[in-house]
């Protein structure tokens, strides 16, 4: 009995596949999405990227009328999930959330994948790094801190915020270079993310952290740390008191951790246009804005073209910082 069922199923699925390949091609674009769409997240459930992906998926589902299922493909420090997005069928039924790591990992020789391995759809978020010190630190402004760093021997100051070669490490390196200092002027203490680094800052083990201000928010509000500046072109409306590097010390350096939606390469343009338009609606919706400002996440919009050039620019910037820090294999 099971044999017959299996054969029937195989036959019928072949028919479906054939009709999809020949007969139904032109109708595909109008019909899209005709079935549930998978949104791959390269990071674990419960994190910031996961949360952003879930709100985007829920709003896309409302707009396009098909379920958008968030699937957390973790492992390999993001490589596994990013690979899954890049190697999926470019039919619009698998899209994914790209994160800043895609412009970093290939410089370290961890993967072949780079921003150009994807069809960019939309940039949704960017969080600039802040410069935080402990509340017992003698430095009240970023200028004082920078002067002290310049005067101290290399490696005297210790900073943290993420692992070796992570985005906040590169932000520190970029800042040092912008000040004309060597990459190792401040020693990097690797940590398992921003939260443990902020704890160690409060415990007195570090001089500064360069994680984003939202990540440091709880400790800052507890009065255990303060933020001196952010490495962004403009102030964050939620943390109005924190100046930008340019305002505080005239250094025009900005970077950030970003999240955007992408699809496998060679996605049919009509599907890409439709998705980008839907994502624009998501971005403009009150739900998305409320959610992001609640968490303190910065919102930045970039359509497919802008997202693409944004990634290319960031990619070059990361490559430079990684070479300076001796992290690049390329």
């Amino acid at each position: 009995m099971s044999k017959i069922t299996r054969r029937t199923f195989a036959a019928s699925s072949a028919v479906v596949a054939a009709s999809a390949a020949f007969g139904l091609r032109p109708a595909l674009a109008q019909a899209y999405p005709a079935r549930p769409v998978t949104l791959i997240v390269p990071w674990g459930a419960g994190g910031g990227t996961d949360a952003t992906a879930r709100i985007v998926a829920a709003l896309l589902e409302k707009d396009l009328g098909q379920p958008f299922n968030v699937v957390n493909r973790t492992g390999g420090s993001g490589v596994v999930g990013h690979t899954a997005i890049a190697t999926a069928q470019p039919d619009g039924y698998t899209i994914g959330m790209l994160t800043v790591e895609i412009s970093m990992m290939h410089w370290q020789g961890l993967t072949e994948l780079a921003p150009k391995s994807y069809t960019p759809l939309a940039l949704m978020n960017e969080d600039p790094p802040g410069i935080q010190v402990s509340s017992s630190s003698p430095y009240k402004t970023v200028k004082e801190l920078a002067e002290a760093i310049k005067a101290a021997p290399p490696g005297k100051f210790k900073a943290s915020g993420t692992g070796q070669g992570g985005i906040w490490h590169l932000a520190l390196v970029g800042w040092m270079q912008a000040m004309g200092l060597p990459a190792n002027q401040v020693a990097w203490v690797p940590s398992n993310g921003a939260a443990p680094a902020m704890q160690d800052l409060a415990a007195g083990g570090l001089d500064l952290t360069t994680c984003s201000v939202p990540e440091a928010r709880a400790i800052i509000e507890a009065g255990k740390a303060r933020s001196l500046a952010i490495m962004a072109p403009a102030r964050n409306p939620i943390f109005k008191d924190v100046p930008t590097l340019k305002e505080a010390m005239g250094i025009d350096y900005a970077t950030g951790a970003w999240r955007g939606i992408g699809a496998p390469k060679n996605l049919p343009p009509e599907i890409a246009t439709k998705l980008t338009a839907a994502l624009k609606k998501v971005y403009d919706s009150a739900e998305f804005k409320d959610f992001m400002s609640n968490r303190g996440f910065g919102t930045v919009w970039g359509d497919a073209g802008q997202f693409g050039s944004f990634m290319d620019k960031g990619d070059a910037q990361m490559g430079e910082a990684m070479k300076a820090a001796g992290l690049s294999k390329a």
Partner: protein
Amino acid sequence: MRLPDSVTGSFLVVLGAASAYGGWLLPPVPGQPVGPNVFPLVIGIGLALCGLAIVFGIGHTFEEEEELIPLEDGQAAAAAPPQGKFYSLRALLPPALLLFYVVAADRLGFIITAAIMVYVTSTALGAKWKLALPLAALSPFAIHLIFGKLLRVPLPAGLLPTPW
């Protein structure tokens, strides 16, 4: 798979030496006085030392004999298992079935792959078809209902999509 202590101990010495050597080869990281090479080095040496101690039987007197804790009313003396030539290879069946799942699940789909796994395991453990067949027919659907449907784990559909 009961091996003499000298064999397992020697294996640990080799493994420890290999990992120490592997760690030694790792490049230092700029700015870190203790690089990623140190930890494998320490562990490798520790492992090798443990292996040596086991080979020479140090700490052996410590070993408490694993006494089989008898069931409350006295376990019936188990009949000696049939000792065919390849009998001990049966132990490899469960990992082999898991690897089969890895290879086959995407193509055959969860339901069919799981049914095969359940049927084979059950039969290998001595079940008659009267038990194994219904088990293989029903349990994949139950598991799929819990994980695929309720918890949204993306289990592959393959050839036999579930009715829900």
